[in-house]
């Protein structure tokens, strides 16, 4: 009996012990799973919190480019140029409000001051001595600073300084995303580089076609950010339609009207087109301006270019024909403008880094006076342009 009892107890123990052990293990496992689920939940919340915090930060990015120039032009020497170093500051102020600014340092600016140079008296006749600028090289320019209110897809409002919405190059003008360092000749001449004021823009859909518009009012050319030298405001508009042809097709027109501080009236207009067909991109802009003084002859400006780029992997090959005449009205000849034929080679080492080699064959407009005649020359620019930050 005793032996049987022992066997029975032993059997029960043998059967139950692993089960008890298994039950404990399961409980532990459940606790561990619960803990892990909690940790995952905390991690998700932390990730969400970090993302939210990041969105609140002012984001700083920018770009830089450096060039090497070699030219056949008389008196020119091969040289490096630290062309641009620009800083962008962006912030999503609120759900529909965005801030954007760009501070550009051109040609590695250096400013030094000279102390005890100017003494002025304030309104209480107290004398104050201020330092004046001794040397200045390069330039610092607040190219853009504006606030955008994204009301709805068909209407955004922008306040501040922005690049004048005109044509293609003036809108997409950053070196890391352009085929050449040298812009077509009429860019930033016929239409001004920037506009200080208000603008409204948006996109309206018509089935498979989109109309993008951008209308603006501003102080006009020749004014600082401090104000306007005359009562007339500049007015402008850019309209572009995106068509479902090829990969991407955009056709557009731009208009600008301004009265300068010296009372000259400027009316500029332009048309542009860009067609992307797989790896080919062809773009063209034609623009003209009439500047009418209060007395005397008008000035007629005309510029156009046609550029073709073929993207082959990281490489881009292209050609551009570019023409500009700074006065077509009275037969005047320009000694700096004319025809520029450019051959273009790009290598995109990364999406934000591009090496460029461009060879320009410049033919300035010929004068009737042989003594003043400018000879054609060529020059090459090798450059690297990098977008800093995402």
């Amino acid at each position, binding site marked *: 009996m005793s032996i049987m009892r022992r066997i029975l107890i032993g059997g029960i123990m043998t059967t139950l012990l692993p089960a008890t052990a298994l039950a404990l293990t399961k409980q532990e496992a459940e606790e561990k799973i619960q803990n892990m689920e909690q940790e995952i939940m905390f991690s998700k919340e932390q990730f969400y919190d970090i993302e939210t915090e990041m969105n609140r930060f002012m984001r700083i990015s920018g770009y830089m480019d450096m060039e090497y120039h070699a030219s056949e032009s008389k008196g020119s020497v091969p040289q490096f140029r630290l062309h641009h170093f620009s800083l962008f500051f962006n912030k999503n102020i609120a759900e529909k409000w965005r801030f954007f600014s760009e501070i550009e340092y051109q040609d590695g600016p250096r400013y030094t001051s000279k102390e005890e140079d100017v003494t002025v008296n304030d309104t209480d006749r107290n004398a104050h001595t201020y330092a004046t600028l001794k040397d200045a090289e390069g330039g610092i320019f607040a190219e853009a600073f504006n606030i955008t209110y994204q009301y709805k897809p068909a209407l955004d409002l922008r306040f501040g300084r922005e690049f004048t919405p005109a044509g293609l190059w003036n809108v997409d*003008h950053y070196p890391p*995303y352009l085929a050449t360092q040298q812009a077509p000749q009429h860019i930033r001449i016929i239409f001004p580089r920037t506009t200080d004021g208000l603008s409204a823009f948006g996109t309206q859909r018509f089935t*498979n076609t*989109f109309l993008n518009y951008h209308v603006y009012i501003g102080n006009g050319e020749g004014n600082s950010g401090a104000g306007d030298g005359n009562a007339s405001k500049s007015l402008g508009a850019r309209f572009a339609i995106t068509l479902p042809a090829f990969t991407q097709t955009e056709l557009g027109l731009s208009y600008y009207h301004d009265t300068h501080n010296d009372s000259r009236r400027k009316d500029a207009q332009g048309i542009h087109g860009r067609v992307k067909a797989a*790896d080919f991109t062809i773009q063209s802009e034609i623009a003209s301006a009439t500047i009418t003084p209060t007395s005397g002859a008008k000035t007629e400006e005309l510029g156009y270019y046609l550029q073709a780029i073929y*993207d082959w992997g990281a490489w881009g090959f292209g050609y551009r024909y570019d023409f500009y005449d700074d006065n077509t009205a009275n037969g005047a000849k320009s000694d700096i403008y004319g025809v520029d034929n450019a051959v273009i080679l790009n290598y995109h080492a990364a999406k934000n880094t591009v090496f460029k080699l461009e060879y320009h064959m410049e033919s300035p407009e010929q004068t009737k006076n042989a003594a003043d005649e400018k000879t054609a020359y060529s020059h090459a620019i090798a450059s690297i342009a990098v977008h800093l930050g*995402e």
Partner: protein
Amino acid sequence: MHQYTSTRSAFFVLLLLLALPVAAESVAIIVNSDNMQDLSIEEIKYVYNENVITWPSGKRIERYDLPPMDAARETFSRKILGLSARVAAREEQGRQVNNSARNPSREKRAPLVAAAVVRNPNALGYVTLPYAESIHGIRIMHVIKE
């Protein structure tokens, strides 16, 4: 002689391997499983070109991209946008830099794209089809076959 033959065979096998096309996977365009709104392939192109920035409901589309070196982005860019991933990424970044981006995309790796779509009912993204099928909480809107 035998060693030479082995080396030559290995060289040809290597050449053959290099010549074989890399098997690209199909790409799934994904949305949150609670999002029952549909966009056509053409409309997805408009979304990624920033001509369309809202869902039919009026909510802003939170769109996601994979890094340009990801094979799935190459497939997506070629088939939907008609551009290489490199060119599409440059265009996207160009719009952001020149302040003309109206609805910038967020570039994330596949797990974060999926996580964002699971979390956000207004998100739109794309990942490889097998990966999309392994994730709960997303709906496959379209499949782009390589």
